[in-house]
């Protein structure tokens, strides 16, 4: 009997040790993937002619948007949509302006790399080229080996997009002036911002769709002004182009408003040049009847959603020259 108890106990400790070991290993692997994904995010060799990285369109200092209406591809193909922020993107179920069944960030990243509507990084049909370029680089050999030990460090779109996903999940913005005030149970610094906050969560009903704390409900809405113009000759029917359901025509996902003051221009087609334009553009009674003063106050509130520590965090910035 004693022997049995001893054996069981021994087994128990062994298993627990093993379990802890696995956790520690998967932690180390996840860290290695974030590090690799970080470097890949800034890697222009992911584009056909080496001119464009993810970071070319998703600039940290603008909350991972860019200042253009749309951004042309590496081969100068016309862009179609405005670059969205990547703040807290790991917390969304639906991705992009209007997709409702992408399996996750890894799958999404294939769109810029090898998508054709529009062509961005231009790698469609040249996927092997990526493995060839990165595989020759000692730094990437090392980083892929650490991040994908079971896959023996193989460089392919599978491992590469998983690493990008791991990095993107670290892009968390939760330290804006608004967040800091909330954490300390303090009021927002200016009267305009406080009034704007009241409007946002109250009478103006912004929070119905731009729901805190993500400032998006991760859901789809039809709020387009009547004559939606075609930009660059590219028709954009929103969710309809994914589902084919008539009711999804011109339906778009609510964008997050975090760091929105840094990310002009606005709207899925970049057609709104200022925050004021963007707010007024909703085909919603509440938005359309906001007075100039109310608009100013709401914008003062939106300004408090900018997160300096997010846009200056070196862990999200250009990786060091040395391989580490």
């Amino acid at each position, binding site marked *: 009997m004693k022997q049995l108890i001893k054996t069981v106990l021994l087994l128990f400790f062994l298993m627990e040790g093993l379990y802890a070991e696995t956790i520690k290993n998967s932690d180390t692997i996840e860290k290695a993937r974030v590090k690799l994904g970080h470097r890949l995010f*800034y*890697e*222009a*060799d*992911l*584009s056909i*002619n*080496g*001119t*464009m*990285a993810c970071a*070319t369109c998703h600039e940290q200092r603008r909350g991972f948007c860019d200042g253009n209406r749309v951004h042309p591809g*590496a*081969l*100068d193909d016309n862009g179609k949509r405005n670059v969205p922020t990547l703040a807290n993107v790991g917390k969304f179920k639906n991705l992009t302006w209007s997709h409702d069944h992408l399996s996750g960030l890894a799958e999404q990243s294939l769109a810029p790399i090898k998508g054709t509507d529009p062509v961005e990084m231009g790698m469609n049909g040249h996927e092997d080229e990526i493995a060839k*370029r990165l595989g020759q*680089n000692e730094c990437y050999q090392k980083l892929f080996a650490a991040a994908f030990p079971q896959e023996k460090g193989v460089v392919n779109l599978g491992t590469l997009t998983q690493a990008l996903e791991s990095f993107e999940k670290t892009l968390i913005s939760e330290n804006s002036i608004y967040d800091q005030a909330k954490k300390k149970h303090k009021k927002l610094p200016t009267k305009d911002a406080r009034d704007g906050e009241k409007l946002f969560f109250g009478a103006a009903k912004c929070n119905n769709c731009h729901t805190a704390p993500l400032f998006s409900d991760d859901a789809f809405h039809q709020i387009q002004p009547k004559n939606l113009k075609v930009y660059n000759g590219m028709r954009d029917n929103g969710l309809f182009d994914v589902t084919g359901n008539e009711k999804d025509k011109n339906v778009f996902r609510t964008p997050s408003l975090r760091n929105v003051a840094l990310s002009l221009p606005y709207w899925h087609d970049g057609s709104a040049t200022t925050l004021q334009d963007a707010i007024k553009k909703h085909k919603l009674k509440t938005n359309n009847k906001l007075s100039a003063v109310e608009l100013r106050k709401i914008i003062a509130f939106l300004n408090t959603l900018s997160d300096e520590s997010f846009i200056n965090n070196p862990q999200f910035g250009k990786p060091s*020259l040395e391989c580490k």
Partner: protein
Amino acid sequence: MKKLLVIGVLVGSLFAQEAVLPLELDAWKALSYVGAAKSVDELSTATLKVAKASYVGLISTPKMKYVIRPMNEGGTVSYGGMFEVQINESGIYRVVLGNASWIDMTKDGKPAQSIAHSEGPKNSGIRKMVDYKLESGMYVLQLSAGADNSSAILVMKIK
């Protein structure tokens, strides 16, 4: 041969679209060849003169040793280069470029902040124009993340 052809096409396209070129871009017409420097030591042989358009040869990115790390570095299959530009009078200067390379205008190891960006007139052979406020002194103009091994370039004073 290929290079000659490119020069021909570029110059041709500039002449052909003369009508759409703004006046101050007249300087595009006189293109002389300048090979880019790949490191500091080569800078003295890679000089651009203000108001004089040049046809520049660029260098494979892995061979480049930039004075400062470019904002946009470009992959192994892209092209870049460096040039020296003597600025005699402080003022607003425009860098006009035939391809979409990233531009860093640097002095004493620091990049100048750009103050305006625009695309060139359609079919003008101009892909990109960036304006900077510059002091007098010697600047190093860095091109990076370019798609081709050559381009046309012009630095001119606009104010």
